[in-house]
């Protein structure tokens, strides 16, 4: 078993004791939605009220916290990283509640929906416009899930960031390639 796979498996096992286990977001969650790319980013969406409990669990696993705010936290263990985004607002709380369980080689994982993942990728891009990889991920998610995506929901996430024109552009780009 690879080191990254073992890292995820260990974290997921520790999180299982929580009433609402964190759900995968970020690059690894892409794979659950048919977009596979190399990533060592281990990102979870977690209940904000579980922040202290998660902090203790991760310290027990040997991580140290290098940043923590009311919105997010970053943990490292040697060259391994694990990031938490806290679900504090209605959209994130709904997406966390609706996360699907998947049986995988890393254990039973909760994974955010493709629509929600696009929303968080957009949020990542808004926070750092040099992260064009997030836009590439959105394009790939649109391409791979075009027939099943709830596009009005996705458009709603772009509206939250006043980026509806970007949504229209990306969808048009996706459709022109079909």
């Amino acid at each position, binding site marked *: 078993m690879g080191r990254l796979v073992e890292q995820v498996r260990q974290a997921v096992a520790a999180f299982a004791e929580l009433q609402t286990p964190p759900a995968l977001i970020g690059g690894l969650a892409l*794979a659950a939605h048919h977009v596979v790319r*190399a*990533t060592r980013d281990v990102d979870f969406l977690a209940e904000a009220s579980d922040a202290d409990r998660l902090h203790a669990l991760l310290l027990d696993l040997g991580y140290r916290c290098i940043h923590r705010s009311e919105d997010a936290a*970053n943990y490292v263990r040697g060259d*391994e990283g694990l990031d938490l985004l806290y679900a504090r607002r209605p959209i994130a709380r709904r*997406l966390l509640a609706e996360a699907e369980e998947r049986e995988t080689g890393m254990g039973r994982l909760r994974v955010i929906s493709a629509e929600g993942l696009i929303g968080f990728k957009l949020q*990542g891009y808004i*926070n750092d416009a040099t992260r064009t990889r997030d836009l590439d991920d959105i394009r790939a998610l649109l391409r791979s899930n075009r027939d099943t995506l709830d596009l009005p929901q996705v458009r709603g996430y772009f509206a939250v960031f006043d980026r509806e024109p970007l949504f229209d552009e990306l969808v048009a780009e996706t459709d022109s390639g079909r």
Partner: protein
Amino acid sequence: MNSSPKPTPAVSHTQLPGAPFAASAGMPFASGRTDSPIDAWMDLMEAIEALCPRWPEPSPRVGCDYRL
């Protein structure tokens, strides 16, 4: 690693001269393995770890505009 057919990249490297090859990079592509794309990712990362067993220490990703 298994011997299942590997997914076909939706974007070829010939279209992307200079595309980075790093521990957390590369272009995303649609998995052709509809049975378990997570297994496909595990295979991919196992191969990458074999090529690059040591990673740079992660740095904090701090955002400021959280609206979701």
